[in-house]
């Protein structure tokens, strides 16, 4: 039978799995790496937030999009590395991430779209 990596990807986080000292060194190196990335991204966000004035221009809209992308990158690092969901089996990973992402995308769309419609109504009725 062909090897199915979607069935057993990695058992190194199983209940009885122990990490050796060498494995520990590798994992810690990765942790510090991610720490540095998260710190740098947060500093970049602060600078973007402080130096760009808020207004309705294309520039600010782009900055806002940048914030959201940086946030998603940070979230991905936390979930996949710190919570080591990236090391879990694919079936667990997708059973958690896919339904949640789909539902949230829908909720964000409908929430903001309806919000704007209500604002339009307020403006229209004075």
């Amino acid at each position, binding site marked *: 039978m062909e090897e199915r990596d979607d069935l057993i990807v*990695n*058992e190194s986080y*199983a209940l009885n799995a122990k990490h050796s000292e060498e494995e520990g060194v590798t994992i810690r190196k990765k942790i510090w790496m991610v720490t540095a990335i998260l*710190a740098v991204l947060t500093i970049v*966000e602060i600078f973007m937030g402080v130096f760009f004035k808020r*207004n309705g221009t294309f520039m600010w809209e782009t900055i806002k999009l940048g914030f959201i992308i940086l*946030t998603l990158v940070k979230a991905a690092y*936390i979930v996949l590395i*710190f919570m080591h969901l990236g090391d879990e089996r694919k079936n667990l990973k997708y059973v958690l991430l896919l339904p949640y992402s789909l539902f949230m995308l829908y909720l964000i769309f409908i929430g903001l779209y309806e919000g704007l419609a209500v604002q339009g109504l307020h403006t229209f009725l004075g």
Partner: protein
Amino acid sequence: MSGHAQAVDTKTLWGGGQSPFGISYGKMMMWYFLASDALTFGGLLVAYGFIRHASADPWPVGEQVFQALPFLSGAYPLIYVAIMTFILIVSSVTMVLAVEAGHRMDKKGVIKWLGLTVLGGLIFLGSQAWEWAHFIHGSGGGFQVNQPITVNTTSPEGETLPMSLKTGDWVHFPSELGHAYEHALEHGDKIEVRNGKVVITSTAHDNHGHHGHTHGAEHATATVKEYDLELILNKYVLERIDGKDYANMKVTGADAEKLMNSMVEHSVVFGANMKKNEYAVQQQYANFFFFITGFHGFHVCQGVIINLVVFIMALKGVFEKRGHYEMVEKVGLFWHFVDLVWVFVFTFFYLI
């Protein structure tokens, strides 16, 4: 982290006797709980987005509302929140190091890193308490005007231009004057506006006993204090005029007197509570601040308690006896989730 891939067909995997997800029941349930909790926070942030998009009035700007630091005066936009974010990220790192130590059965390592995680959590909670206290207390307060009015204003860069207010628009006090005004209102002192000054005359009270005590004659002397009258427009919002953004516009002299004289009676607000707030026309702004950061703080509080319990268990050698440190991993998942939520709150409540 070498994965040893085995060939197992689906029937065997889902046929019972082993975990199809390759994780224990406890960890899986923690993940499911986190997914449902993530829906709660997602729902809250979308509700915030809905109200903000539905509002026709300008929404407060995070860097103008949150710019204070403890023990320091002056404006440090978003610095305090950034420090809080760092504290939480660092405590997330110490937590992942505790989990890593657990996988090597390193009891000392687990105790050290978990202890630091608890400490980080407590520091974050303390910071949030200060932030709440500052938000509730406010930075000077403000009032609404009872008629359309046009005044001359000066920008922080020294540019002068006239600005028009509608009925019900907000005018803010600078910090020192605002707090003196608040104190005077609380004590029923006489407040007069004349010659570009606010004159506060206080009689018959000292700082200690003004709850119906009869004071001796030595307390009954009137004290008069004068403050330069200076008011601020657009303290928490930005207004775009001819392609340029204007905030923190200063109004002084006769124009400021004109604003004080058009004050809507009892419209003076200091800080924020569940009924009114000085930051925004929209009360939902304060309510969402209280609810979202409060609900997150509640999670941090739970996390600190759970971490502390597991810390004591590790100290007593419970996991050493059990043969694995999976409990550290489970509470670690919850703790990282708390950090994750803060990353989103930070972006959507403070930055954007």
